């Protein structure tokens, strides 16, 4: 709203006034307009009206503008539906097939992300954070340090792939712009929490899963498997539990809002994987292989005691609490993660076997 209010104040621009007066300027040699660009449209007469949610991106997909081909060989920035210019050197987009990027929900998620924007500086009720016992503060700071690092990986992965996608699938590029911006906000909000209550940042994370996500260079779909189906879902599960065990309204707000943002990325990711599987015969098996390889690295990160203990302290309220109820909650959280992960794999029809080291968390049936 601040942008809209500021824009409304600028009713007349002083800059524009100087141009208005130019009409009285001395005579110029004015070229005869050629107008060769006129009447050049693949579809004219389009009149999309705003609906209940305003004039949304998805509502523009009418007539030829809604034709989204399976392949988009044009490597210029020709907007979908416009008349392209011949002979333009390619920008060099790597992802040019719909199956490599698409999710039907991208346009809706884009608009939702914009509507649900929030600002850590002003929307988090920071004044509700009160001094915590030292062990709890250390645990909260450690968890926030690692979550901030998770967000860093998200920023790097999304921004590394987004610019390699062709313009024909602009809805996805646009949604990912919101996802990258969300991740930047997460990076910031976790850092803010760690630095504002007598604590500080903790120990950096072990990094095997970070590296695995960043190194999924085969394609965006492969990156999505790790970013969403493994790390994303794990982070989401942590956030859900953190919200429940938050020490104050500020933390509760942070975890709840980050969770909401991450839910969009999860929705996009699952929708995209489903689409990719439906249009690429081998994709399902590729995902299964990636998950099997990923298990090894995930288990190595998982065996690191730091995050586990920090979470258990948060859930148990203290070191003492962590030794009993806190760790029980942690194991419950892991069961929730594995169970949801398996459900999603099943929904995607991806064959999945939980490795022995994580079997204790697998659903009984």
């Amino acid at each position: 709203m601040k942008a809209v209010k500021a824009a409304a104040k600028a009713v007349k621009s002083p800059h524009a006034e100087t141009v208005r007066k130019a009409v009285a300027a001395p005579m110029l040699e004015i070229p005869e307009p050629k107008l060769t660009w006129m009447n050049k449209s693949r579809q004219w007469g389009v009149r999309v009206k705003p609906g209940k949610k305003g004039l949304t991106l998805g509502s523009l997909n009418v007539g030829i503008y809604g034709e989204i081909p399976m392949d988009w060989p044009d490597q210029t920035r020709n907007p979908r539906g416009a008349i392209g210019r011949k002979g333009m050197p390619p920008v060099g987009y790597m992802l040019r097939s719909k199956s490599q990027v698409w999710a039907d929900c991208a346009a809706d998620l884009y608009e939702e992300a914009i509507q649900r924007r929030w600002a850590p500086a002003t929307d988090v009720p920071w004044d509700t954070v009160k001094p915590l016992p030292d062990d709890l503060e250390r645990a909260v700071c450690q968890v926030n340090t690692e979550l901030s690092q998770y967000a860093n990986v998200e920023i790097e992965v999304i921004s590394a792939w987004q610019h390699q996608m062709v313009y024909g699938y602009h809805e996805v590029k646009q949604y990912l712009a919101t996802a990258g911006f969300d991740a930047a906000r997460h990076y910031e909000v976790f850092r803010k929490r760690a630095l504002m209550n007598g604590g500080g940042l903790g120990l950096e994370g072990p990094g095997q899963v970070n590296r695995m996500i960043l190194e999924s260079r085969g394609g965006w779909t492969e990156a999505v498997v790790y970013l969403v189906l493994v790390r994303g879902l794990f982070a989401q599960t942590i956030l859900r539990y953190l919200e429940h065990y938050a020490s104050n309204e500020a933390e509760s707000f942070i975890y709840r809002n980050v969770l909401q943002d991450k839910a969009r990325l999860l929705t996009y990711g699952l929708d995209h994987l489903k689409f990719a599987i439906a249009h690429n015969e081998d994709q399902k098996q590729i995902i299964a292989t990636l998950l099997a390889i990923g298990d090894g690295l995930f288990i190595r990160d998982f065996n690191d005691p730091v995050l586990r203990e920090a979470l258990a302290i948060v859930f148990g309220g203290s070191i003492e609490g962590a030794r009993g109820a806190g760790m029980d909650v942690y194991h419950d959280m892991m069961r929730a993660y594995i169970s949801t992960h398996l459900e999603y794999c099943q929904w995607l029809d991806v064959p999945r076997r939980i490795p022995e080291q994580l079997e204790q968390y697998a659903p009984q049936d």
Partner: protein
Amino acid sequence: MSEAEKLGPDYELDLGWMDQTGPWDTRAEEGRNGLTLADIQVGEYGRVPDESDNQTGRPRGSAPRSGSYRIGNYAVRTKSEIWLDNASFLYEEALQRQWSSATDVPWHTIEPLPDDIEQAQCQMATFLTEVEFVAGDVPARWVSQTTPDFFEARQLLTAQVMDESRHMDVFRKRAMANGGGLMAATGATSGFVGSIDLSRDFTEMSARLHISGEGAVLTIFRMGELMAYNDAEKAMYRLCAQDEARHVAYGVMHMRYMAETAPERHEEINCYFDEAEAGILSGSANPAGQAPILSEPLAILLGGGIAKFDEGFKKLVALRRRQIQEYKKRVVSAGFGARFENGRSRINEILEQAAAA
């Protein structure tokens, strides 16, 4: 047996990590504008290294872990290559001033326009849809290559990617909202040598994108009321102008930092400005440039129709002058004003060309 399985009901904890932290007892305090990025630049956490050796992606100020895997190989590890002093401020402003093209533009105020005006508006909207996201694609690439030690600058770039995404979509929306449609693309930002896309260095990219390209577009957006025929179009241009002003500010402030801290690169940066000036009107990325596919619709919009093309063209020439004056001010503000005094810049010649159409 896994680590977790070894843990019994009364769990043993290691807790060695509790003493491995960054500087402790940190209490960043909320200011008038909330708890901003600037407010958390406290103590060591506010110290930005001139050279970053962070290869693991750890948050700046956190305790390093000796066994952590290197993930970095970041191309941008030297502060001066990407830094600007007010990144935190601009980032927070970007967060506060997000807007929605779906609901913040009063689309219902659009009424049918004469065909020549609608075509000119749609051609301009097609062009802006085409070029706006070059400023999303390219910063995104640099975000992924920048060490998180310079996260303040990186945050601002992610905000820019978001802004550009909205610009790409608001102009597409305009083209389809009033009985028109998309028209012809210009190919303006294709893979030409010397284009924004092909910049090999962040500062080179910033000179082309922020100072020259977006600077020229910002002047047009600020003049939006002259080519707007209803409140929706006015709002669209004003809101885009706010965003664009931040992006241009990135470039100016980054160049200022370079002017102050990297004297060995001044000549190189002047070369980027030479190149920017040479293309400011002849290049096809400036909506007020000389390519007829852009200058003609703009003149029609500024004049009020084909019948008033001459009047519109005079305004277009005044607008080009304005663009060049603003460009000059930015370069002076960035600390490279000497080029206008020592005869290096050709901007005055270009200004004369602009006046002579």
